[in-house]
């Protein structure tokens, strides 16, 4: 990693490295914070979440320190303190605390952004200092008192646990859960997998409080682990449900469900020695009553075969403590000496660990998890998106060159004397073609990212809105795994945000209004994504008041968008809200339900080659659908001819092509359409669309059937000239955008060809059909 820096002047390599290093971290922290807020609202806090946040803050602190950004490092350190207090229960997980965390992450993000711009101060900006002071205040607030009325826990065991683990243990005991110890032995070489499986199985039944390798007389190549698990299930149920033959389970505390307070002793006594026998007998052995096993093991056991509960506890405690020191190597060490060490001494490093900057490593409750995450980090490469763009361009150039070779092959094949060479070249060309396609697909795939990131941002916005407005709105998110080109995902964030905000601010009614109209007080906004062929459809649906079309008509007339006597059907009226100038910032829009700045949304989505569609039912809600292509970079294009000109139509939106005679073209109310297997297909003549001279009458024509989302249309052209790969390039120059043209591409020997923006044409066709 980069050398230590104390100043971040300029967008140096180190600064870039830092930013890319930290961006993901912040993103994960945001996502975790979002989940935390949700869980708090739902009333079930998952301790892992706070742990993960803690670890992220810790890593951030470390990275910032390494790059010399003291301000960021300092704030991350304070964040660590807050999170530590949260997970230890010293600080209540309430709204102010969450706000503080949200704000801290926002300030961190702003600082990191400043580093990216190259104008960060090492000590951080004023916002950072202010926040530090507020955090200090929050941490000074009185800590919650520890409960002392908890069931007695063996002090030896307590000593073996870290402060955090103890906190979680107490927390679970307070909730009346039973505490079990699960033990299993694994092959040393493959223990990660087995342990992960075991941990996962245990986690399904409760909370894994602590995981440690345990000593014992296991065979050389084996390693044993003990898991301390809190669960609602009593021992027998737990054991049954865990259902892992090589694991043994015993109970430490029966929980509130068990009858007598003496129960733990007996249970522990009966099951206490069992694990060791499991180890001795290897996998698959299980001796719940443990008589034989205990005897067998007693010989090799330091603490002999005591069966009293306290000794069973001690046994566990011993295992914990020994291995805390020895780490994962699992070498038995001088346990009795450890046991005799007074608490707070070096034998129990955990008690001081929390103020220590290395705390997460010490505290980390699940070694297997950490190993897994370490591995995944080393398997991943972060790449600047610009580098991918360059690669993509390069692939694009190659594709064009390949096209040129193809043309040469065709010429050679026509030349009798060169035909043999031509055939050979054709073979090579074919192989090249295939490999190039694979390369292309590979590069495209690298650019794909799941929509989840954007969705999580939206969830954050909704949470904030909810907090600020006091409006009760639930956000449902589905299909976050749906993937899109990184570039599209980036460009999509703003329009989606707009749509969601609109839904929240204007569509969802107040609780009183909702109750009055027989709806649940809580409103719902549902964001859903799914892939459909080469497109991804994202829907934002609300169960709000729906759009008041009369109000829309009135507004449109008032703004001069339509004549006062214009007769508009509902669909046309709905389309009006996409008109530029339909709404302004100052407009009160509660009457129309939705529609602030939707023209901007449509413009943004259309510029990505997508479509916006809206459906609304008065009183029931509104659904806005965005249909987007999966990628923008390289497309397969259908080349068509109109008069002397050629156009490229992205193949992703082409459904089929047909040849038609003039006689087959039908007319209805002055609009042309085609009978496509019984369905009317609206037709657009490309020459008319683009103001080109009309072809000679009577000529045979081709129809390219294009579809986007649910909308279909037929484009009438004169010639179909085959498929070709195309890299869509933006058109530079004084005219910034031309409706109906998505860009241009160079088609080898065919020169520069314009790429038709199918979305715009289809949209225009649909609109005109409705307007006609």
């Amino acid at each position, binding site marked *: 990693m980069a050398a230590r820096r104390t100043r971040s002047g300029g967008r140096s390599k180190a600064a870039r490295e830092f930013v890319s290093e930290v961006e993901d971290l912040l993103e994960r922290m945001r996502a975790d914070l979002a989940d935390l807020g949700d869980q708090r609202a739902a009333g079930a806090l998952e301790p892992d979440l706070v742990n993960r946040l803690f670890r992220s803050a810790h890593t951030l602190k470390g990275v910032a320190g390494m790059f010399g950004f003291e301000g960021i490092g300092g704030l991350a350190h304070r964040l660590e303190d807050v999170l530590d207090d949260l997970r230890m229960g010293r600080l209540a997980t309430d709204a102010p605390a969450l706000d503080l965390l949200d704000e801290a992450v926002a300030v961190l993000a702003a600082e990191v952004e400043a580093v990216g711009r190259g104008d960060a101060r090492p000590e951080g900006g004023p916002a950072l200092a202010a926040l530090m002071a507020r955090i200090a205040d929050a941490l000074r607030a009185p800590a919650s008192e520890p409960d002392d009325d908890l069931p007695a826990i063996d002090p030896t065991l307590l000593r073996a646990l870290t402060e955090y683990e103890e906190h979680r243990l107490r927390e679970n005991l307070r909730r009346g859960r039973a505490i079990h110890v699960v033990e299993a032995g694994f092959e040393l070489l493959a223990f990660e997998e087995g342990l992960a499986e075991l941990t996962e199985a245990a986690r399904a039944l409760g909370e894994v409080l602590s995981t440690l390798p345990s000593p014992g007389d296991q065979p050389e190549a084996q390693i044993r682990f003990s898991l301390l698990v809190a669960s609602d299930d009593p021992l027998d149920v737990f054991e049954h449900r865990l259902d892992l033959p090589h694991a043994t389970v015993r109970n430490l505390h029966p929980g509130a469900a068990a009858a007598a307070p003496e129960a733990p002793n007996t249970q522990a006594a009966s099951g206490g020695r069992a694990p060791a026998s499991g180890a001795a007998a290897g996998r698959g052995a299980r001796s719940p009553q443990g008589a034989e096993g205990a005897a067998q093991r007693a010989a090799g056991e330091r603490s002999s075969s005591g069966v009293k509960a306290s000794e069973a506890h001690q046994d566990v405690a011993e295992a914990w403590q020994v291995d805390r020191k020895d780490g994962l190597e699992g070498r038995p060490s001088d346990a009795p000496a450890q046991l005799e060490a007074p608490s707070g001494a070096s034998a129990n490093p955990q008690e001081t660990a929390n103020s220590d900057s290395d705390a997460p490593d010490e505290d980390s409750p699940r070694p297997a998890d950490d190993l897994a995450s370490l591995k995944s980090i080393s398997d991943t490469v972060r790449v600047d998106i610009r580098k991918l763009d360059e690669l993509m*361009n390069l692939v694009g*150039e190659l594709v064009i060159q390949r096209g040129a070779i193809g043309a040469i092959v065709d010429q050679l094949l026509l030349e009798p004397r060169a035909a043999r060479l031509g055939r050979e070249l054709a073979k090579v060309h074919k192989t090249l073609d295939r490999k190039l396609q694979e390369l292309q697909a590979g590069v495209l795939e690298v650019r794909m990212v799941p929509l989840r990131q954007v969705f999580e941002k939206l969830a954050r916005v909704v949470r904030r809105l909810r907090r600020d407005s006091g409006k009760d709105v639930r956000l449902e998110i589905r299909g976050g795994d749906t993937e899109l080109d990184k570039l599209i995902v980036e460009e999509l964030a703003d329009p989606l945000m707009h749509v969601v905000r609109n839904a929240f601010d204007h569509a969802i009614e107040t609780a009183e209004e909702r109750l009055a109209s027989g709806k649940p007080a809580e409103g719902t906004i549902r964001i859903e994504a799914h892939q459909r062929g080469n497109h991804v459809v994202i829907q934002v649906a609300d169960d709000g008041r729906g759009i008041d079309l009369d109000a829309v008509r009135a507004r449109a007339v008032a703004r001069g968008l339509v004549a006062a006597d214009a007769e508009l059907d509902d669909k046309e009226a709905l389309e009006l809200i996409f008109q530029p100038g339909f709404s302004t910032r100052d407009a009160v829009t509660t009457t129309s339900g939705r529609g602030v700045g939707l023209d901007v949304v449509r413009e943004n989505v259309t510029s990505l080659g997508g479509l916006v569609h809206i459906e609304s039912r008065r009183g029931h809600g509104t659904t806005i659908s965005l249909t987007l292509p999966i990628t923008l970079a390289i497309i397969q294009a259908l080349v068509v001819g109109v008069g002397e*000109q050629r156009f490229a139509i992205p193949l992703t939106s082409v459904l089929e092509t047909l040849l038609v005679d003039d006689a087959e073209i039908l007319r209805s109310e002055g609009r042309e359409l085609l009978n496509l297997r019984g369905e009317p297909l609206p037709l657009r003549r490309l020459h*008319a*669309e*683009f*103001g*080109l001279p009309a072809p000679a009458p009577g000529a045979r024509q081709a129809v390219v059937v294009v579809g986007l989302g649910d909308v279909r249309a037929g484009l009438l052209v004169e010639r179909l000239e085959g498929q070709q790969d195309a890299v869509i*390039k*933006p*058109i*530079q*120059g*004084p*005219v*910034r*955008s*031309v*409706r*109906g*043209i998505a*860009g*241009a591409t*160079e088609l080898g020997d065919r*020169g*520069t*060809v*314009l790429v038709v923006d199918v979305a715009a044409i289809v949209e*225009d066709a649909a609109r*005109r059909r409705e307007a006609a």
Partner: protein
Amino acid sequence: MSAGGATPGAEGRPFGSASSESWEAAARRAAARLAGCTIEEAPAALRELLVLWLDGDPYALPIERVREIVRLRPITPIPRVPDAVRGVISLRGEIVQVLDLRRRLGLPAAEFGPDQRRHRIVVLHGEDGQMAGLLVDRVSEVLRVAADALRPAAPRESDAVVALVPHGERFASLFDVDRLLDLGRRAERSAP
């Protein structure tokens, strides 16, 4: 003040950025020679202008806005744009709009004839790093003039002409490139 240098290699080869650079360098050299000094010595108050011709009249562009000059090549027309935009060309993989400068200024269309071989596309640095091409009858030279030799343009001149530059016995009209490229209205024409 006129002649100076018919600039050597005034037409950059298509797809060769190197040629345009060497042309620029040559222009600078020629201009420096004209002023009787080395390039380094050239006083800052001197402006370098590219002289081009439309319908028999000279016009001028600030040289720093000129990226390269290429021969006329096939221009792909684009629909739904103002008349002044002839279409697009591909310049080393980048797609650039070409303005017909005669149309832009409302001059009569060029006649077909041998003169067409002298037509050039002057590629400019437009706003926000975007390029734009200007189709002109021909380019002739780079002019070095003292900044104080510029004369204000008559009010009736085209909106894009900001000054008059003495050029031999006559005046070349100096363009403001940004105004020239501003087509004034929202170019997108709605569908018919």
